[in-house]
């Protein structure tokens, strides 16, 4: 993946797109967790949410920047 992508003729770092995508992904995971009450099994839900986000962003970012 190139380092920068032209969105409407403005150069945007492609990591930013990955970031936004990871946010959406995390939001979906969060929704499922809340919907089925999965957070009951988690010690510190906010920390878990952040960790999920960092896993998504880190993994996808590394993949994209390969």
């Amino acid at each position, binding site marked *: 993946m190139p380092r920068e992508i032209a969105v409407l003729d*403005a150069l945007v770092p492609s990591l930013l797109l990955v970031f936004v995508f990871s946010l959406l992904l995390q939001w979906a995971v*969060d*929704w499922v*967790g*809340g*919907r*089925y*009450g999965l*957070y009951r099994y988690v010690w*510190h*839900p*906010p*920390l878990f*949410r*952040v960790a999920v986000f960092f896993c998504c962003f880190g993994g996808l970012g590394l993949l994209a920047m390969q």
Partner: protein
Amino acid sequence: MNARQETASPRPWLMDQLRETALDWLYVGKALLAIFIGGWLAMRMDLQQPATTMMTVALVMHPASGMVLAKSFYRAMGTLVGCGVAIALVGLFPQQRELLLVGMALWIGLCAAGASLYRNFMSYGFVLSGYTVAIVVLPVVQHPLGLFDSAVMRVSEVMLGILVAGLVGDVLFPQRLRMALRQQLADQYSGFLAFVRGSLGGVLAREALEEAHMRFVGETIQVENLRSSVVFEDAGVRAHSPRLRQLNQHFMEVSTSYQTLHHLMNRMHAPHHRDTRDRLRQLCVFTATALQGDCQPSPEAAARLSLALQQTERVLPGKIREQRQGLTSHRELLDFDTGAELLGRCLQELRAYVQAYAVLRRPGVATAAEKEVVFQHGNDRLGALVSGVRATATMLVMGSFWILSGWVHGGSAMMLATIFTGLFASAPNPSAVVRQITLGFATGMPLVFLCQFLVLTHMDGFGLMVAGTVPFLLTGLYLTTRPTLAGYGTGYVLSFIYLLNLHSPMTFDPVYVANEAISQIGGVLAVAVAFSLFGNASSNGWLRHRLLRQLRYQVARACEAPLNGLRHRLESATRDLFMQIMVHAGPRARDWLPWALSVHETGRAVVELRRRYIALPLAEQAAVAAVLEAFARLYRGDAGKQDVAHQSALLALDTAMVTVTDRPALRQLHLLRLALLDNGSVLVATPTPNFHSHQEEAPHAP
């Protein structure tokens, strides 16, 4: 034993105090940490104004993590929209400073008006999308080509601040707003049940009803406010959010019906009503027995109570038939039926409320019926227009002054004035808030001088810079946790961060700081002037009366609006409007409480009547339509000048009661008629002087 108890009591008190203090300092520590992490990251990333990031953190930080996330979300939205509009506006008028200024002022006015139509942080998002335009455009007004970079910078700085604040607020020792919501719901539940249990078979004068009503309105609105923020904090609550709405809706419905029941009983004080009233009272006493059980606010107890209520609901019709025997005259039967039906409705709604409370935390999906519930806010459009005009006018006046006088720092004054006129447009008593903020600014400025030119000049590196600024910020942040000094503390922290304008490499320019300080004070004073010229409903009696008018107008809406979902909208909008009146009028709101009660009662009866409307034959429909029309006119007219409308409503009611044969519709008509004739109600312009003593002599139950 007494002595032992007394010596034992200070310890929990002390522990509570210590706990509260510890929580306050925890918040201060978290805020400081977030501010400096934000500042450091912004400097590392070479953003133009790390101060914006730090300011964002300071603005969105709140002890409860749900509040931080909610405010962050709307701040992000507002910033994005504002930047988009800034680019569009400069694209339209790149060479014309005056037109650009007018365009900006209009947009900001529009946003300020929009802000007063919404509550909580949604309103904040509107204000923000307004003034972000000014923040983005002003620095590049001389060289429009730099606009895009300015917008990108602003977005980056704000987003960075939001991320840092959200992370620190939510992950590091969060204080859960969810707990506050749970506690609030439990208090509401046990408070209401205790109120019903204590009064269902007993005496309740109008004053006590009014008192309770005020409390219930406050609780309803508070639950709705908390709900709108907790959904950002907790995915579980977000999934159950429709259920919470539903619970609140049931609470509103049952409190309206219960109050109507008491009014009805209070109205039957004449001797010829005594027999009917005694029979109804028997029914009430019977119903109250169901509530003698466990009223603890736990889901299990609520489930048991709901079963007990269901049982009572099943037995009640038999009891009603039993009491109905022996009543002969048409009038008595109608009185009795109306009361009995109302009691049945109360019981049914109470059961629904208790049941909703019982299943609140049970896992599962929201049903379609729960999703339909809406909480509608009531608004005065003219009030919104006033806040729009206020924001536009402030910006135009300050902007013209800036351009005409050639004041180099006039832009900052204009910007600050615009920000604060938008932010405090719907605050209760904005003049007092602005006064506190001004004092905060005035305190912050000399301290910035002290910090920047006496302390920071000796400091080298980020660590020492933090050490040099922490003592100043610490005091300000602690002040924001004190309820009475919150405005002062906010002003102090904002002016401190804004004026200190930390960046890397740091530059020290006393002349610049002094000029900025003067323009800031000018800006804040302009806000004070704007609010004293165009006050909001807190200082403007006319706007307050408009709110009351809007409240009465809800009955007209109940008569005319489409029936689908009308009950929900009516219950929430009337409460929201009354809450606004309470917020702006303070203790004076009590004078208007009778109107709120009358609107609730009549509005609900009208809705019930309209639900029967379709089932009626044509001739009866016409009579009912005439009643609806007359009531709409009665509540639309001015308070105190409704004699004619009152007479015609009474006439329409009498005609309809002769024509209509459908029993449920007839009961609602009777209810409306009693409400219309009640001497204690605000609808009767000249209450008989001995009414109150009469009511106290003959309470409807011992």
